[in-house]
């Protein structure tokens, strides 16, 4: 299987290890990733508020580049925000004549054109098809035996509901299924699709911290020993901001947060450092060892 790969901006900063681990497991599972050349910002929902035509044009530039990569090639991204933005732009470019006209003009200025035909996938979607789960299951060498994990999907990967959204907006199952294949135990997590606050942490820190605190509290109450997510922004909030939450509310969580690609990598026998597990704020490697998960060091 071959995909045009759009890493998204967070792949170079807070989601570095997400990008790295996705590339590694794609290789291990014979999924070919060809980077979209000179990709730029997807537009993002923030630009959408400021100027929808501008946001759609920024999306379309990247999608036009994907179209040039070959007939019928489909795109995959690890960023939930980019996934949502691209889908939204595609939908507007199919149905909204005003936006279509503006985007066409904007792309002409950079000698590009886009026909709104590129299919957009999230890495979680690509790695949890029955076929992918079967391949993963055959290649597991280090199952995550009995690890109790809260499957945290966040918002953008399941909402809003587009024509071809791959999972349920209220009670998605893809991550749950994957965890079972990896040998882990998904706990029943009431907040699996509840928003982490996203960029509110930058604009209204105290509100953001309170939202994160709730997610961590309910994960703990559900019996989870760690959390897994397919979103770099959720990871930033849950892992990087966790010490801040602990300080603000005088509450200790000690809740490691993994990208789902890292858990796949561990089960496939990849080294924790290759997967960037040492890059997290909440210690992960000592945690895994304490849970009796066999990890290569």
């Amino acid at each position, binding site marked *: 299987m071959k995909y045009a790969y759009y890493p998204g*901006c*967070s792949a*170079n*900063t*807070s989601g*570095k290890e997400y990008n790295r681990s996705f590339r590694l497991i794609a290789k291990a599972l014979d999924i070919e990733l060809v980077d979209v050349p*000179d*990709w*730029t*910002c997807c537009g*993002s*929902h*923030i*630009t*959408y*508020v*400021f*100027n929808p*035509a*501008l946001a759609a*044009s*920024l999306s379309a*530039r990247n999608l036009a580049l994907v179209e040039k990569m070959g007939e019928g090639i489909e795109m995959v991204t690890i960023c939930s925000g980019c996934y949502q933005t691209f889908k939204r732009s595609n939908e507007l470019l199919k149905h909204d004549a005003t936006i279509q006209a*503006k985007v066409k*003009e*904007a*792309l002409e*200025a*950079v000698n590009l054109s886009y026909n709104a035909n590129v299919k957009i996938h999230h890495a979680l979607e690509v790695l949890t098809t029955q076929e992918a789960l079967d391949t993963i299951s055959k290649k597991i060498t280090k199952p995550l035996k009995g690890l109790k994990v809260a499957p945290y999907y966040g*918002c953008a990967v399941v*909402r*809003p*509901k587009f024509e071809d959204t791959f999972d349920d*907006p*209220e009670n998605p199952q893809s991550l749950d299924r994957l965890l079972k294949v990896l040998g882990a135990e998904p706990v029943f997590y009431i907040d699996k*699709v*509840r*928003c982490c*606050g*996203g*960029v*509110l942490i*930058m*604009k*209204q*820190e105290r*509100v953001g911290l*309170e*939202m994160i605190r*709730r997610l961590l509290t309910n994960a703990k109450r559900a019996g989870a020993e760690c959390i897994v997510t397919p979103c770099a922004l959720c990871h*930033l909030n849950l892992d*990087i901001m966790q010490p*801040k939450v602990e300080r603000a509310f005088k509450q200790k969580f000690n809740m490691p947060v993994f990208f789902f690609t890292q858990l796949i990598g561990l089960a496939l026998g990849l080294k924790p450092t290759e997967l960037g597990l040492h*890059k*997290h*704020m909440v210690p992960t490697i000592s945690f895994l060892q304490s849970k009796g998960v066999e990890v290569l060091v």
Partner: protein
Amino acid sequence: MSPVTHKITPEMIDPTFEATLKKRLGEKGKKIPLCFQCGVCSGSCPVAFAMDFTPRQIMELIKLGVKDLVLSSSTIWLCAACYSCSVRCPQGIDLKQVMDTLKEMALEDPKYGKAEKAFYEKFIEVVRRNGRVDEVALYVKVMPKSAVMRNLGFGLKLYQKGKIKLSPSKSSADQVAKIFEKVLATEVQKQ
């Protein structure tokens, strides 16, 4: 939450407010009158605890034409754009899109959203200049200087973990700048 005791005065009212909003929302605007105040949006909203008006109250204020309270509410800026309300509304109202459009209207009107405007402008500026977004560059730009100083130790730890880099990533910024120029120029012509 403390009880809201606003007195609606004539200056707060714009009788054309609902119609304007509906028009801007296009097809989606047609659903606005269908709101029957069930409150599923407010019950689903993960940020409702911090808002001055809940999403349900905003819907009612829209119908009452109280533009001033809507556009100066904290609600529209606290909306985290998570779409929980939109997927659950039994009347099929895309409330997240309503919030987006209210934000747009507030940003256009010098009376509202002054503090918020800076965030959007700085975000756009980072994209225009670099072609890509760098969370740290954005964080530093958006944060008040005092908060940046308070977070220095935290920043250092992130740097050690390789989570932030000092030089922002850039890509085809010239092309992105051209797209900006083109789209924003046609907007100005239109006005």
